[in-house]
């Protein structure tokens, strides 16, 4: 990992002048964005605005052509791979819920715990009481305690979304990237998810990508609207949703 001389920014996540193109298509175009520690940020924008690509860049899946991506003011994320970035404390929930379907809910959380992830460590692993307690706590938070021994593949869509959020909690990252957490959820579930994310935000920095404007409004946090790979508007939900350009490209009249 490359360590710069001291911190250059107070931000937990700092993106500056990031460019990515795939075969001439500019997915991300001079994107600059900062997230302060403890902040929760909602990212909105039309399809193809570069929301998921931005998460790919932050988590090391995609390397930017140019630009700076700093974590905690010191660590250059563009030089690290997915595993290293996850170890640093950046967790990610995917747009399509991705859980380990052929394993139990409990095992899904066990795999997510941020304990020794080496080959040797897992081969000779023996559960500890603290680990079991952490899993119990997460199960309670995501309300799946009674389903702990069921296979993750048997869960409903909404429950899978929650399990994946639970896996993020078990990972105990500093920064959570949450891609479309309420897609396919009922109104009640959406409301519960907003409450859950607010609860998580008391301790952690969160970035949420979401299309559901009711949900974004319920979160009540600063909103960034992306369009064609760059920031179109930033501010409170009211400011952003009254922005002419945002209405034109995203919200519609």
């Amino acid at each position: 990992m490359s360590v710069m001389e001291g911190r250059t920014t107070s931000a937990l996540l700092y993106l500056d002048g990031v460019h990515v193109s795939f075969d001439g298509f500019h997915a991300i175009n001079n994107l600059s964005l900062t997230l302060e520690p403890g902040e929760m940020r909602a990212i909105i924008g039309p399809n193809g605005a570069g929301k998921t690509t931005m998460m790919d860049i932050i988590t090391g899946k995609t390397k930017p052509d140019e630009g700076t991506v700093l974590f905690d003011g010191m660590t250059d994320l563009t030089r690290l791979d997915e595993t290293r970035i996850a170890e640093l404390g950046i967790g990610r929930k995917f747009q399509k819920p991705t859980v380990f379907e052929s394993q139990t809910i409990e095992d899904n959380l066990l795999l997510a715990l941020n304990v020794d992830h080496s080959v040797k460590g897992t081969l000779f692993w023996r559960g500890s009481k603290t680990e079991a307690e952490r899993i119990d706590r997460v199960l309670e938070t995501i309300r799946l305690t009674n389903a702990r021994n069921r296979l993750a593949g048997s869960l409903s869509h909404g429950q899978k979304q929650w399990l994946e959020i639970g896996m993020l909690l078990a990972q105990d990252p500093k920064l959570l990237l949450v891609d479309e957490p309420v897609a396919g959820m009922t109104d009640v579930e959406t409301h519960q998810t907003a409450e859950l994310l607010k609860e998580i935000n008391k301790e952690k920095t969160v970035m949420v990508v979401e299309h559901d404007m009711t949900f974004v409004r319920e979160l009540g946090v600063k909103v960034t609207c992306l369009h064609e790979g760059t920031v179109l508007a930033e501010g409170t939900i009211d400011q952003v949703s009254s922005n002419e350009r945002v209405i034109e490209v995203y919200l519609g009249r």
Partner: protein
Amino acid sequence: MTPHVLTRSLDRSATIFLVVVAALGVLIPLSNLLMPAGSALQVPTYLVALFGKYACYAILALSIDLIWGYCGILSLGHGAFFALGGYAMGMYLMRQIGSRGVYGNPILPDFMVFLNYPSLPWYWYGFDMFWFAAVMVLVVPGLLAFCFGWLAFRSRVTGVYLSIITQAMTYALLLAFFRNDFGFGGNNGLTDFKDILGFNVQADGTRAALFALSCLALILTFLICRAVVTSKLGKVLIAIRDAESRTRFLGYRVESYKLFVFTLSACMAGVAGALYVPQVGIINPSEFAPGNSIEAVIWVAVGGRGTLVGAALGAVVVNYAKTFFTSGPLAPYWLFMLGALFILVTLLLPKGIVGTFNAWRESRKATEAANAESAALEDGVGEPKPAE
């Protein structure tokens, strides 16, 4: 590894498997050696050697199931590791011939005299010692798997592309070992073995002992595989199989896991090959043939991948069928039957024999539980149900 780790959560099919293999490993040699020849209770020596071959194939099948069934790595070149282990053992057996060869050279094996080798090639040094050969049985396949895996997994070669390069690997080795100047007997390979550790390889006692050892190796391989797949590492392997990139984002170094399990699996295949060679009495380049590796994958598919017991069972069942059909008038059609078997299993029994059986048992258990529940409810009609 502690005994606790080895015996952890032995389920019923695993216990049955171990008991059966152990019983055969003891009873077949005893019957062969102690019962009078020709008696109905005597297992003839040719059958002992045949069952010994099946045991070796079962070890190979387990090694494939470990990487394919649990980690999703479909190696179509595992026969190469099997053959390398076999060659390492074959080299020891060649050196044991000593001056009893056709040309009577005390150092050089016959084929080297025939091909005018001035002296023993450096890579044959040490193979006159059994311990050295035994170490090489593990090291050579393990090292090749490690180097191959290091390059392939770090570059994130997966799926069908990985399968294709494993085929290319075994094919390249086939061509290399066919060459006379490669130093391993070329086309003819290594044969005419006389002794192993001072015992005549043809003797009934040696064959019985080799069979018992093969069963022991099968049991140990099974226990090691089981220890790996029931550990937390096993859960990580399944996670990699089902959602590789998700596993990376959780902070697991996927390539290290694949490398570990691939290398371990290659060492197991090497042991299988080493036990196979003294029992069949020959090792030649045809063992590297891509078809052999594919056949071994079919055994695992037939038995049920990701079940371990199924892989071993599949190896025995398919090879028994092969022995049966290739010794009769249907012999020319064996490969067609094998292909048809693979298609049928893929279409009708995608979980294989053991996987299908497990699923059936589980669904029956679920139905029984549901029936018991509804019966309990009916019994309770009219009576106040006690609060739980």
